[in-house]
Structures are given as C-alpha cells and as structure tokens.
C-alpha cells in the first residue's frame, strides 16, 4: 500500500487518476481503517487529504451559507456554536456516528463517501440541501449530496474525483432541521432507520420541507410525498399521520441482522413524526438539544 499526503486537491486528484488498483482517500479513516484491518479493502494507494489547506476549516460565508472542510471531524462540528445554532440537525446526525473517540476523527465527507445506506449524517445533509464540490483531473463540479451515493458502498464519483468541500445553504428565517435514528442500544449502533426533516414556517404554517430517510433503501431517500404531507399544515395530528404514512410507504428496506422489513417500515413513520416535531419546534425558535447533547 502506497501512502500519499498531497498538499492540494488537484494533486490528490492527479494521484488518484494515475494510481493503479484500488485507491482510497483518507480523511478521518474510521471506515477505511476498519476495512483495511478486516482485509475487506486493502487499498493499493491511500491518499491522505488532511494536509491540504482548508480541509480543517468551518467557514460561514457572507451570504450566511457554510463551507465545511472535508477533514473536519464530528466533534469539531459539535463544538462550533454558530453551526449548531444554524443547522442542529446536520450536526446532531454527524455526532451520532460512533463513539466520542470516533467523533474525534470521523467526517461528514467520509460518512457520505463510504456509501452506507445507514450513514447517519447523509439523510440530514440531504434534508438540508447540502452540496459537495468535487475535484477531478479535469477541474471542479458541484453536486447535490443525494446524487453522491448510488448503492451500498458505491458513489457517483469517477476515478480520480475527490470531494474537496461541503456546502450548506444559508439557514434563513423561521426554519429548523432535526435528525433521529433508531438503534437498539443507546449508542454505538448502526442506524436501523434514520430520518431527517428540514422545514420552514410562515407563522405556524410549514411552507417548505424536505424529509429524508436512511437505512430503508439501497441509498438515502428524499421523500417528496412526506414533505408534501406536511407542507401547508401546522403539523397537526392529521398532518403527522400523513407524514408517517408517506414515510413508511417510501421504504424499500431489507431484512437483515439489524432489523426486519416490517420493523423498519413501521419505525420510519414513527421517527418521521418525532423528527418533524423537533424541526418544527426549532423553526419556532426553541432550543432542543440532540438526544444526548
């Protein structure tokens, strides 16, 4: 295994494009090292992107949007008061990944590129309409987060392409986001179902919403029907029931060691309601901490 630590994304992309065999980018390493250790994937080329300038930065842009360096670990997101105030759902989703120790390393970008349908941060990023800058041998492009994963362990990134930054839109007024997942223990598990909601209010009425689900299909789902179920409502019981039904209806899960089809389908609806209530309260200006914040 060849180890490289380039000093620019252009150089990283070039290394990846020219490398033979299996190439992996190393950010937090919490997936790459596990796969290496277990002989699941031993890359021929490992490109550590943490020495590239800017990869550790959290930047609030002039228009209120955010740019996140690709090597910022979850713990640093959680410690950034401004980011937590704007996008508590994105931060709490990332902070649910693994342990305190894992939070010291694991990154949003890594969680995304690992391609796990159960990745906690991905539904929250999708609900937040986040985008990624992708640097390749031929330059840069900007891609919606939901277009990156294409199936378990697979992404739409071409050979030589690497995510070089993540972007969150400006938060704007009267809006809130939230993420919850179901796991059997209180910590340390992979999501059996995950759900994120991002919404905006006009008075008490929801005017915009995005609802996404994790671990219920081969990739993260952006569920338009679920958003439609609550847009125009005040999140009354009937709207919540419609939301739950739409979320459950969107599920295309599998039976596996972590959960059954019936369980995932049912709990997706339960979570959607709970998450929507939190997002709604946040949009109203309430401070609601993550489940163990």
């Amino acid at each position, binding site marked *: 295994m060849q180890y490289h630590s380039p000093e620019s994304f252009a150089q990283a992309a070039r290394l990846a494009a020219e490398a033979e065999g299996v190439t992996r980018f190393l950010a937090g390493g919490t997936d790459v090292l596990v796969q290496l250790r*277990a002989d699941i994937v031993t890359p021929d080329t490992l490109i550590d992107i943490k020495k590239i300038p800017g990869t550790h930065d959290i930047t609030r842009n002039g228009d209120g949007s955010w740019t996140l360096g690709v090597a910022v670990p979850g713990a640093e997101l959680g410690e950034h008061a401004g980011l937590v105030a704007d996008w508590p759902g994105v931060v709490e989703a990332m902070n649910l990944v693994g342990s305190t120790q894992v939070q010291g390393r694991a990154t949003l970008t890594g969680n995304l590129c690992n391609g796990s349908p159960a990745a906690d941060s991905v539904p929250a990023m999708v609900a937040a309409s986040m985008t990624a800058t992708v640097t390749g041998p031929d330059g840069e492009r900007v891609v919606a987060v939901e277009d990156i994963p294409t199936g378990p362990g697979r992404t739409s990134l071409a050979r030589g392409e690497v995510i070089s930054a993540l972007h969150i839109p400006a938060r704007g007024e009267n809006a809130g986001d939230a993420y919850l997942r179901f796991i059997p223990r209180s910590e340390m598990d992979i999501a059996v179902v995950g759900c994120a909601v991002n919404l905006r209010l006009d008075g008490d009425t929801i005017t915009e919403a995005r609802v996404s689900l994790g671990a219920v299909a081969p990739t993260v789902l952006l569920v338009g029907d679920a958003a439609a179920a609550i847009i125009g409502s005040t999140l009354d019981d009937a709207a919540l029931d419609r939301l739950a039904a739409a979320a459950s209806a969107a599920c295309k899960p599998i039976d596996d060691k972590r959960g059954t089809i019936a369980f995932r389908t049912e709990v997706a609806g339960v979570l959607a309601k709970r998450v929507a209530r939190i997002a709604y309260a946040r949009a109203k200006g309430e401070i609601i901490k993550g489940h163990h914040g």
Partner: protein
Amino acid sequence: MSKIHVSTTVNGDAVEYLCDPRETLLDCLRDKLSLTGAKEGCGTGDCGACSVTLDGRLVCSCLVLGVEAEGKEIGTVEGIAEGDVLHPLQQKFIDYAALQCGICTPGILVAAKALLEQNPDPTEEEVRFWLAGNLCRCTGYDKIIRAVMDTARDMRETA
C-alpha cells in the same frame, strides 16, 4: 514494501519509528515503542480500549495510521500520572474498585480525563454517553461512573 519514517511526540517525549503504512498507531505504540498500556480489544473502533489523545483530541489509536502521527502530540495512559503522583482519576478508580480485570481501564482513564478537561461538571448522563465507546464487560459501569463523577467533584473543589 517500503517503510515510512515517523517523528512524533508521545507523552511529551520526542520519538521516532519506521512503520508499514498499513500499521495503526496502536500497533506502533505497542510494538515499536513498547507502550502497551493502550490495548486492542476490537481493532474496529468499537471498544475504546486503545483510546489515546491525538493533539488533545480523544481518538481510538486503532483507527489512526502510524504514519498519521507525524508531527503530532500523542497522549497515552502511561502519561496520565505526574511522575509518581497519580492523576485523581487513577486514584479514584483504585479507591472505588472501578475496575475488575483492568483491560478496559487504560482506555477509560484516557477518555474520562479528556471529558473532565472539557467538562469539569458533567451529569451522570453526560459521563455515560461520553464513555459509551469504552466497553467494560466486568463492572456494569456502576463504579466507573461513580468514580468519574466523584473525581470531577473533587477536582472542582480543589480547583
């Protein structure tokens, strides 16, 4: 396969080693520097027995490559005591019998120390969630949580 030369700092001391890029920081600490306090319980970041600090940040050393330690500051259980004076957590763990077999203890001490440095007055729930990545199979965590809470109280009073 060529090895890579790494210069780093462990518990304040400058050290160097040569490692295969596949070797973890845990492998390097244990096998190259003979610092066997950090333990490998799982190798997948699920048990926390290999906890160390990397530039002050709590991490699993099994999820860090040895080559990534270049130029970093690493803290291990061997560096917690000041000479022959135990850190208050270490003393309290002995006093409270907060260990049975002791294999998870180094990782828990490193993690608990990192917690108290960031939050000197944690609630029981905060301690439990902070330590959720440190598995202990012997104690049921009861005495561990009490020891950490009581150390925090002592340290606040003496601070």
